[in-house]
């Protein structure tokens, strides 16, 4: 069930009234939301609800063990087991075939043959996200960020809550659990901001991301040898904006839907293509993942302690971050390139801290960062290395006439890019203007905007890119 569909609209309409109708009875409200979340997940493949339930049972149980155990060593061991169990589930469903194939290829290239098995299982949608939620619950308990283990129903809702279930944002247990335990106030629904986020998300996904994919990016990446440098440059700009519009649209709709149900989610994107460097980029792009990796992987590895260790930890974090996105070497290279460039940026900042200031410097920094990120997106988007290198080679094929540069495509690409430089408080400004309109009229306008977005969009909606992760 995709967000920009009538199925989801009807589903949410029912859930909204049932959940608020049950708000006087907190336990009932929680079970309504759990039932809705499992129904939402079952819409993809009902069999995987057992996996979701299994993950919940493991993490709830391990949470209780971590809390009950005395002695730091025992607790640490229990956390280690919990993390290993979560990663084992992820490993079987997501990475088993990747490692099996890679090992088979490696042995074959060495002249031996192993024929390691291949598992014929589908990848459960959202597995990377709910695994991280499970780890967050146990680790937050261990670190004392959660005072005591939560009741089973709370853990169940935390791991399965439908707005964030399949593509995030990654909501930490210490941030979300207190919200489940609190009684929601029906007098304080953050509706106007929620409507704006949902409408903005629909526009970004249904119109911008979908047309960038169908009219530009898919063709450019399918056969890069057919196009010249300008088209391929436009194609990679297009992909940078497509993936941003696609993923941030999902996040915005998720935040808006959760807000209408009385929950708060963390920010996940903050105009990433205006970043001044890669460190800055990762503070603006998929913030919930990058800060999760920082706090649950980079810092436990040792963080910034010592030059050599810092670079090693950075590389491990970025390589694993790349692998988290998908079981393919192209994602590992994507993470590795970011890791190398981040290490270089850290090193440069340490060696030559005095750099030119002012607007010129900022413009150059933004330009270089954006183009480096675009370069790495080629590996992220290409189905394999062959396509990635064909694409990179094509970027030097000057002189070929452009096939993609229609006014429509240029408007989409450069309009979406220009939106990255809008004032950071744009949402507050729009909300201040909209709240002057009576709320019934706000509803009517929202309804009409949705009809218009649906009319503008292509027929059929492609799944969100991050569903595959």
């Amino acid at each position: 069930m995709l967000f920009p569909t009538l199925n989801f609209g009807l589903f949410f309409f029912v859930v909204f009234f049932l959940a608020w109708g049950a708000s006087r009875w907190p336990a009932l409200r929680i079970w309504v939301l759990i039932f809705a979340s499992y129904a939402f997940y079952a819409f993809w493949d009902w069999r995987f609800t057992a996996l979701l339930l299994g993950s919940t049972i493991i993490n709830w149980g391990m949470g209780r063990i971590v809390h009950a155990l005395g002695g730091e060593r025992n607790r640490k061991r229990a956390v280690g087991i919990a993390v290993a169990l979560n990663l084992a589930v992820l490993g079987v469903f997501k990475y088993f075939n990747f490692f099996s194939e890679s090992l088979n290829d490696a042995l074959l290239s060495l002249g031996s043959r192993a024929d390691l098995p291949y598992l014929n299982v589908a990848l459960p949608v959202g597995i990377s996200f709910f695994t991280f939620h499970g780890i967050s619950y146990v680790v937050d308990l261990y670190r004392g960020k959660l005072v005591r283990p939560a009741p089973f129903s709370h853990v169940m809702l935390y791991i399965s809550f439908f707005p964030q279930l399949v593509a995030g944002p990654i909501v930490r247990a210490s941030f979300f659990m207190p919200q489940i335990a609190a009684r929601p106030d029906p007098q304080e629904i953050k509706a106007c901001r929620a409507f704006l986020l949902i409408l903005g998300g629909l526009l970004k996904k249904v119109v911008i991301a979908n047309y960038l994919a169908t009219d530009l990016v898919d063709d450019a990446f399918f056969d890069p040898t057919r196009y010249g440098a300008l088209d391929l440059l436009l194609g990679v700009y297009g992909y940078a904006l497509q993936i941003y519009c696609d993923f941030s649209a999902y996040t915005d709709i998720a935040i808006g839907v959760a807000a209408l149900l009385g929950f708060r989610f963390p920010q996940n994107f903050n105009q990433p293509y205006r970043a001044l460097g890669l460190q800055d980029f990762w503070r603006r792009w998929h913030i919930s993942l990058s800060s999760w990796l920082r706090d649950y992987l980079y810092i436990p590895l040792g963080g910034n302690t010592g030059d050599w260790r810092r670079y090693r930890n950075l590389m491990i974090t970025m390589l694993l971050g790349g692998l988290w996105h998908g079981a393919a070497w192209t994602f590992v290279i994507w993470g590795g390139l970011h890791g190398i460039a981040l290490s270089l940026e850290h090193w440069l900042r340490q060696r030559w801290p005095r750099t030119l200031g002012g607007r010129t410097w900022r413009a150059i920094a933004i330009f270089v960062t954006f183009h480096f990120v675009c370069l790495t997106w080629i590996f992220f988007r290409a189905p394999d290395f062959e396509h990635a290198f064909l694409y990179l080679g094509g970027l030097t094929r000057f002189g070929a006439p452009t096939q993609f540069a229609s006014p429509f495509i240029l408007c989409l690409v450069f309009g979406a890019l220009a939106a990255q430089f809008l004032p950071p408080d744009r949402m507050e400004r729009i909300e201040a203007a909209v709240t002057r309109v009576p709320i019934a009229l706000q509803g009517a306008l929202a309804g009409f905007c949705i009809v218009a977005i649906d009319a503008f969009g292509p027929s059929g909606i492609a799944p969100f890119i991050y569903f595959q992760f």
Partner: protein
Amino acid sequence: MATLFDRSLEKFAPRAMPPAVIDVMADAGVAPFRRVAGAIVTAAAVMALFGSEALLNWANDLPISATSDTILSAAQSWHDALSRVGVPEIATELRATFRRFQGWGKQ
């Protein structure tokens, strides 16, 4: 001591070590349930009115069953009734205008 780089970064970027979680709804305005429910019902009504064609397409795509037959028949009657007064034309016209823009400049 902040370097020139750090100072220029601060103008554009968030703090050097941002908090783990930034609540995007922290300063949002609030409304009571009754008004929000009214807005959602109004939005649904406007969508049913101007999006009757989308509703019909959705009903057409439902798996075949006695219930979906009833839904399809209702969606068809609703769309026909609105078509008689020309309401779905608004969405069609919006789509046509957008398609013209999409095809503008293409050979």
